[in-house]
């Protein structure tokens, strides 16, 4: 499987690792943006694609991570390296609480109530001025890699890239485990899942919590990248971008999340030249995928290349390389 997922991603990682060597400042910035949106897409896909919870609070979680990371530095004087993981944990905690309404609601109702929650967070960012500095936002302290001889953009880029690798591998392991199967069971049939002893609240809370953590970590990185946090970065349009990454990449696929995030960010940046076209082209892209490519790009890859399947278990050995379609199995005697 020369063009299997593992080989292709390792090649992309190698390219990603040498980008700082030849990229200019803007290109490095876009590269860093891609890593941040990969984290957002993976987290959202675990919640929406795997656990089937149609939630619209990911941009709010992204904002909570960014605000928490920034405000812990500004108000309490915490160093970035403590404020940043704390921001992720704060978003994970808030996300877990969001699972409580999700126990009683599903589909459109859950979408609406999480949307309402997202609007409420916007309101808090805007109006709790004493803490959040209101509509104007605030500057975060300049991140420095002091003893190391690297500049902030390059250092932050490598930190982001490292986290992408770590959290990608983590997510892949979670979805191929008992937990991942429980998520899919909750998505495909709540009553059947319960009849097998799967606790709905527990697994919904876990999915919301994990996706909150990913969004919070992404938010912390984003605040450090921009050195600035303001409410409009975490609004409804932001949410639509997140949703687009997983629709284009493929729902229920961690690998698809990576591809979707990279493509959406690159397209948005390429279209930045032509003001006004950005929204139109972006909308057309979304409509096109919803109409003609329901499963996202990952289904196309799976159709033409070997090694992109994502079973919900650890693939055992090489014996499964050629799936034994209707191969005779002498051991079956009951037929």
């Amino acid at each position, binding site marked *: 499987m020369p063009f299997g997922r593992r080989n292709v991603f390792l090649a992309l990682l190698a390219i990603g690792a040498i980008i700082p060597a030849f990229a200019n400042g803007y290109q490095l910035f876009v590269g860093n943006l891609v890593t941040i949106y990969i984290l957002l897409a993976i987290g959202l896909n675990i919640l929406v694609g795997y656990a089937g919870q149609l939630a619209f609070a990911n941009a709010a979680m992204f904002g909570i991570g960014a605000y928490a990371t920034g405000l812990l530095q500004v108000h309490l004087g915490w160093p970035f390296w403590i404020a940043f993981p704390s921001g992720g944990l704060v978003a994970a905690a808030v996300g877990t609480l969001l699972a409580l309404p999700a126990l009683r609601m599903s589909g459109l109702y859950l979408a609406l109530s999480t949307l309402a929650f997202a609007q409420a967070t916007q309101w808090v960012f805007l109006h709790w001025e004493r803490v959040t500095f209101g509509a104007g936002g605030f500057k975060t302290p300049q991140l420095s890699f002091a003893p190391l001889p690297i500049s902030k953009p390059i250092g932050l880029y490598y930190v982001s890239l490292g986290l992408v690798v770590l959290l990608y*591998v*983590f*997510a892949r*392991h*979670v979805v*191929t*485990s*008992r*937990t*991942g*199967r*429980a998520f*899919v*069971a909750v*998505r*495909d*049939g709540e*009553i*059947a*899942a*319960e*009849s*097998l*002893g*799967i*606790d*709905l609240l527990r697994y919904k809370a*876990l999915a919301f919590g*994990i996706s909150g953590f990913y969004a919070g970590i992404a938010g912390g990185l984003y605040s450090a990248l921009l050195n600035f946090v303001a409410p409009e970065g975490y609004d409804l349009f932001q949410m639509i971008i997140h949703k687009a990454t997983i629709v284009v990449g493929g729902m*229920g696929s961690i690998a698809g999340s990576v591809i979707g995030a990279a493509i959406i960010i690159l397209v948005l940046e390429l279209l930045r030249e032509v003001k006004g076209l950005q929204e139109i082209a972006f909308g057309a892209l979304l409509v096109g995928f919803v109409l003609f490519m329901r499963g996202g790009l990952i289904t196309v890859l799976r159709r033409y290349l070997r090694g992109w399947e994502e*079973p*919900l*278990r*650890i693939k*055992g050995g090489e014996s*499964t390389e050629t*799936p*034994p379609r*209707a*191969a*005779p*199995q002498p*051991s*079956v*005697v*009951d*037929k």
Partner: protein
Amino acid sequence: MSALLLSVQDLHLSFGGVRVLQGVSFDVRRPEIRGLIGPNGAGKTTLLNAICGIYRPQQGSIRLDGTSVIGRKPSDIAQMGLGRTFQSSQLFKGMTVLENLMTGLHRQTTTGFLSAGFCLRRGRDEEARTEEEARRALHFVGMSEFADRPATALSFGQQRVVEIARTLIGDPKIVLLDEPAVGLSINRLAELDALLRRIRDQKGVTLILIEHVIRLVMDVCDRVTVLDSGRVIADGAPVAVRNDQAVIEAYLGKELRARHSAS
């Protein structure tokens, strides 16, 4: 371990003003295959849903192995050793057959998301055991060659069998089967008959079988309980129940019964 496995006493359940169950009582011993039959709307599926915790009865008691299940969550009751299958196929559509069975082992396994995510040794070992056991269960129902098929690629009858296997793999004490024979051909029916017996005899699992295919019920059940309009109207061996006046009346109506006995 007493012989009495499930005891339902004086169960009342109504939806709004509609009284669906009106004082249902019956006991199930282990291991037996209990038939639960009755005309449409008799309250059979409602009774099943009350036992597994989806509905909460207004009055009465349900004891599983001596412990009351009323007021508990369905997932907790499942943890206590009660499995069930549904009238329509409830396989997880986004999974393969094997993954469906592995999900059936949920309550037997413990790996959390952290030890899975960080790929700890313990989690990997448990995962390997889970897969092995799922393959064994698939073999037990004679469907090994379908392991890697998507669940949706199976025929209706095959889906029912996989669903039974998915419930059995969790090592339940008792399994409630809601019309497993719907839409099965004659040959398939014979296979199901044999499978149910093997479940009772080899696994020692007690079964409660809601079924309209009376031939299967009469053939495979040790005892039959007949429900009509939310009440138990007969309870006994299949032959006795078949000749019971009240049962014939419930199924055929009074007038037909007269003709039935005249002929």
